[in-house]
């Protein structure tokens, strides 16, 4: 019996969605816009996180050594580095190798180096970290320890860049959620009002249903289904628009941004993010309906 009633109620919801299609389409567009804003910020934040990861993958600590340091001393410093639990591997970069890396990376500056009498690049030991999530304070303590070794003249470590990128990604995400929350709240009220208009338009029908013995749940379900479908359709549409934006963005706008292109690029949402956007849309729609129908059923 419940299955039959449910079938009838779903059919009723379908009829109502179709009967008030103009109004419903507008609410779907508004919901999709709200979720699109969240989606765009999530895509931006995904990109920044990605860039941060790329940076941290290449993350290494370079310990620059005195020139002509005896091999034994180099080995001692290498052992000191390897003794640390933070380090995965250490490689020795000779002066010649440093020079060849420089000329390969900056060919336009090659002339300056060749004009010099001697090789200006010091030899170095490049240490790779085991885990990218090691705290900065642990790394700093380790660097200070190695720095005290005779023969080490300087240290280069770019973790602050990774952290900057990560915090930028967090900020973008937070701004996205803040704006998104405001817009979701707005769409919540819009859905609630659209459903209220639908309820009002069908006040007569609701009254008849009540007088011939319908329960409040029976009256409420088609409206909840409508809200659910509006929210679901809105969030799915936002994902579709976002997908198109990601495809079109680099073609039309990307190039105009020049160097900032990489920073401002949109990276597709993960499946988990898409799932939560859809769940969020469906929930917003359903809750919007619940509030307005409950208010009307008291009449």
């Amino acid at each position, binding site marked *: 019996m419940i299955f*039959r009633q449910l079938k009838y109620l779903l059919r009723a919801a379908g009829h109502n969605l179709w009967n008030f299609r103009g109004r419903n389409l507008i609410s779907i567009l508004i919901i999709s816009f709200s979720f699109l804003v969240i989606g765009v910020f999530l895509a931006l934040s995904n990109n920044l996180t990605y860039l941060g990861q790329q940076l941290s993958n290449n993350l290494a600590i370079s310990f620059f050594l005195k020139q002509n340091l005896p091999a034994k001393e180099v080995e001692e410093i290498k052992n000191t580095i390897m003794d640390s639990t933070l380090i995965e591997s250490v490689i020795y970069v000779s002066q010649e190798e440093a020079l060849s890396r420089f000329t390969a990376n900056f060919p336009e500056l090659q002339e300056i180096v060749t004009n010099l009498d001697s090789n200006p690049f010091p030899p170095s030991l490049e240490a790779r970290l085991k885990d990218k999530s090691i705290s900065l304070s642990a790394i700093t303590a380790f660097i200070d320890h190695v720095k005290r070794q005779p023969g080490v003249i300087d240290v280069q470590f770019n973790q602050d860049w990774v952290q900057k990128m990560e915090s930028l990604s967090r900020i973008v995400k937070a701004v996205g959620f803040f704006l998104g929350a405001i817009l979701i709240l707005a769409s919540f009220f819009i859905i609630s009002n659209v459903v209220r208009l639908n309820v009002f338009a069908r006040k007569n029908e609701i009254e*008849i249903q009540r007088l011939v013995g319908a329960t409040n749940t029976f009256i409420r379900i088609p409206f909840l289904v409508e809200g659910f479908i509006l929210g679901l359709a809105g969030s799915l549409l936002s994902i579709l628009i976002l997908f198109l934006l990601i495809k079109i963005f680099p073609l039309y706008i990307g190039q105009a941004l020049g160097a900032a292109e990489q920073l401002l690029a949109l990276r597709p949402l993960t499946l988990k993010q898409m799932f939560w956007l859809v769940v969020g849309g469906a929930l917003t729609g359903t809750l919007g309906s619940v509030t307005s129908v409950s208010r009307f059923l008291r009449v």
Partner: protein
Amino acid sequence: MIELYHIWKQYQKPHWAISDISLEINTGDFCFITGPSGSGKTTLLRIIFREILPTEGQILIDGVNVLKIPDHKIYKLRRTMGIVFQDFRLMFHQSVFANVAIPLQISGLPDKEIRRRVFNSLRQVNLHHKMWEYPDRLSYGEQQRVAIARAIVNRPRILLADEPTGNLDPELAFEIMSIFKEINEQGATVIIGSHDRELIRHFGHKIFFLQKGKIIGQEVKT
């Protein structure tokens, strides 16, 4: 059995729409509540199926105090009743079929059974050929018959009808009354608010005369 004890109803001070009405209607009665327009017939019927609450008084249906039933359980009482409203209360954007089927849909009957019962009800009021029309394309009298078909489709234990033949020609009015009588003979209690003296004279078993919200007389035919 329907028992009303000292029912008072006031919509607006200082006028009383119903003043101290007490009456008893036995199970299986076929009764009329009659009186001039504004005498309180509609108000009394609306109070019986608890569309409105009386200002004072008590109503018992089969020993259950209707006024004590919580709002969320009132549907149980209404499912045992069939109601023909004076203003029909049809859903104009739904077909005649959907309008008549609604009490059955609410009860969750199988589709096949719904189709069968709706068709039979519409045939009883001679409207089965307009099952898929929309009410706004029907005449006033036809709309009234749709409302009657909806009221009888659920085979109610109590049938309340407010001026059910008000817009019908005498021949059809007679036919409709015969349907009500048939339902009554199957065991249902029928209460009709009407001022059609001819019908009352012909069908009335128990008649309550109302004037200015008071019962001024009662007649029981044997």
